[in-house]
């Protein structure tokens, strides 16, 4: 059997994304303007629980998005060379974005 974990993980990260997005909206857009002031935000993002959430959210986004793109490349790019190139560049993009994300989360 192949592809079971990949498929299940796509579903799980999808659910995490919906939950995470809801939380993000509550905190960023419905908690009042005083909660998004510079000092308050700095304090929040240095909280280890928020860091955990951010890493989880980031991992979900990167996996979910790039797994989807990977599937598109796999199924719809027919010339083999082009498909390999597309998949390689997807891996690079995912790695770079993940690194940048982790860097930002661990800044403070």
């Amino acid at each position, binding site marked *: *059997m192949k592809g079971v974990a990949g498929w*299940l993980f796509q579903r799980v990260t999808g659910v995490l994304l919906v939950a995470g997005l809801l939380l993000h909206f509550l905190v960023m857009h419905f908690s009042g303007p005083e909660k998004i002031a510079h000092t308050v935000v700095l304090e929040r993002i240095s909280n280890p629980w928020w860091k955990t959430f951010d890493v989880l959210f980031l991992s979900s986004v990167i996996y979910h998005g790039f797994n989807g793109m990977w599937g598109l490349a796999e*199924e719809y790019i027919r010339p083999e060379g082009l498909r390999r190139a597309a998949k390689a560049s997807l891996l690079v993009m995912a790695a770079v974005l993940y690194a940048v994300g982790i860097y930002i989360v661990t800044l403070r």
Partner: protein
Amino acid sequence: MENYVYRIRRFDPEKDAEPRWEDFCIAMRPTERVLDGLIRIKDTLDGSLTFRRSCLHGICGSCAMKINGRNALACQTLIKDVPLLTPSSPSCGHRGAAEKAAAAVSKGVIVVEPLPALPVIKDLVVDMDPFFGKNRLVLPYLINNEPPPERERLQSPEDQHKILQSITCIMCGCCTSSCPSYWADKEYLGPAALVKAYRFIGDTRDRATEERLEKVAQIQGVWRCHSIYNCVEACPKEIDITDHISKLKRLAVKKRWKRS
């Protein structure tokens, strides 16, 4: 009786380099079937028109074709139920003057094409070998090495009900050839083969569930299905094919984590 224009996608491998369109104007009753028109055209207008048909009653699955953009059995599609194209619509365009005039006095145009994604042999006849080949891959037969009982392997009505839908498949090919995932990847097993796999995996008398799941839970098996539902729309037997494939996905997940 009303006049209808049949616009048929034709291809004769001995004469044509490319498929071409041909119009036939015939009188039909709205309660007749699309297949009746094809038979009438073959009998009275052009004996070279080639298509498969056998039982004429939606059981053999031979006359699957694309009718006004939708895969269906021609023997099960009534003229009155076909969304007719008007002779002036763009998709009916660039005809000769005579054909245009004939179309103008008709009730509408019925576009008939062979099933998509399968190689055309002649006119509306497609090569079903790739389709049946996929079916063979999922071991479409009962596997049970236990000694058979005196009379037969019995099944309770409840157990039979679990696979009732998948049993009604007549393997006409409407679903697989309507599936965008199959269009993009001809190695994909396709909805029909997956329904067949489910038919035996869900059968309480069968003992080869593991073996079949192994064949089906592959990149070019169930995971190629993205729940597009074209198959469900096309199926002339109204099988909820996508639901069956989802059940196979669930079984694969369960089996994967039971083992380790």
